[in-house]
């Protein structure tokens, strides 16, 4: 995901702002990382450049 996405995304549960934690990035994008809700602390993963903002109970783990 590109960093300008931060302008409009929010926590899907309480609609508060998210903090971005970058694990890996390339020239254009954040490839791996985490989005953390500044209010409820819920964490949303960024995997292969795609943020997963499903509510945690809808986000099953990928099969190992």
């Amino acid at each position, binding site marked *: *995901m*590109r960093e*300008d*996405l931060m*302008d*409009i*995304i*929010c*926590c*899907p*549960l309480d*609609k508060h702002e998210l903090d971005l934690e970058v694990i890996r990035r390339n020239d*254009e994008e954040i490839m791996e990382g985490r989005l953390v809700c500044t209010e409820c602390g819920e964490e*949303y993963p960024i*995997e*292969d*450049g*795609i*943020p*997963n*903002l*499903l*509510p945690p109970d*809808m*986000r*099953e783990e*990928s099969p190992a």
Partner: protein
Amino acid sequence: MSVREEFDRWASEGRDRGMAERHWHTAKHALARAPVEPGDTVLDLGCGSGYAGRALRDTADAGRVYGLDASPEMARNARSYTDDPQVSYLVGDFEHLPFADDAIDHCFSMESFYYASDPHAALAELARVLRPGGTFYCAVNFYEENVHSHHWPEKVDVGMTRWSEREYRQAFREAGLHVAGQDRIPDREITIPPADEFPTEDWESRDAMVERYRTYGTLLTVGVAP
């Protein structure tokens, strides 16, 4: 089965592209009507392969396009079909939109809205994220008047809401959206074989197939945030 699991399976079988091709026959007419201006931020809700949002980048010069889908595999496929830095895909749920209030100029959705487990909650979320004057273009082939769609839920392992045209209008209004228009967009491109080839695998009679595609086509309901 969850929406995520069902559509991850579809995506990994490559069904996202076949759907896109079939849906394009009517989706393109709906897209052509949308009042998207250069630079606008567009959401493609339940984007699947993501063709709709990409089309609005090309034809209407949309500024940023976000495709949202509950299926990570769909989002992954969609991402692989474009290099456009202005187009992004997110995994998310209709009823829990991860967007700030008024963040979206226009939202388009093709053949996905009725999978929402609570469609009223989904509409409330849309009313929240659309800026005043923003539109929701909601296109569905599965609806009450289209009798030829009534058996579809048997083939899909997730819940589907079957509203009538009137129920769509009412639900939009209950969610606080104005209804700006509604109609059925015929699919004039699908190949309909000559009468003597019926019954086919999918169709009892030619008349039924004609009715499905030419009469019922795709139901488009247009909502506008006040």
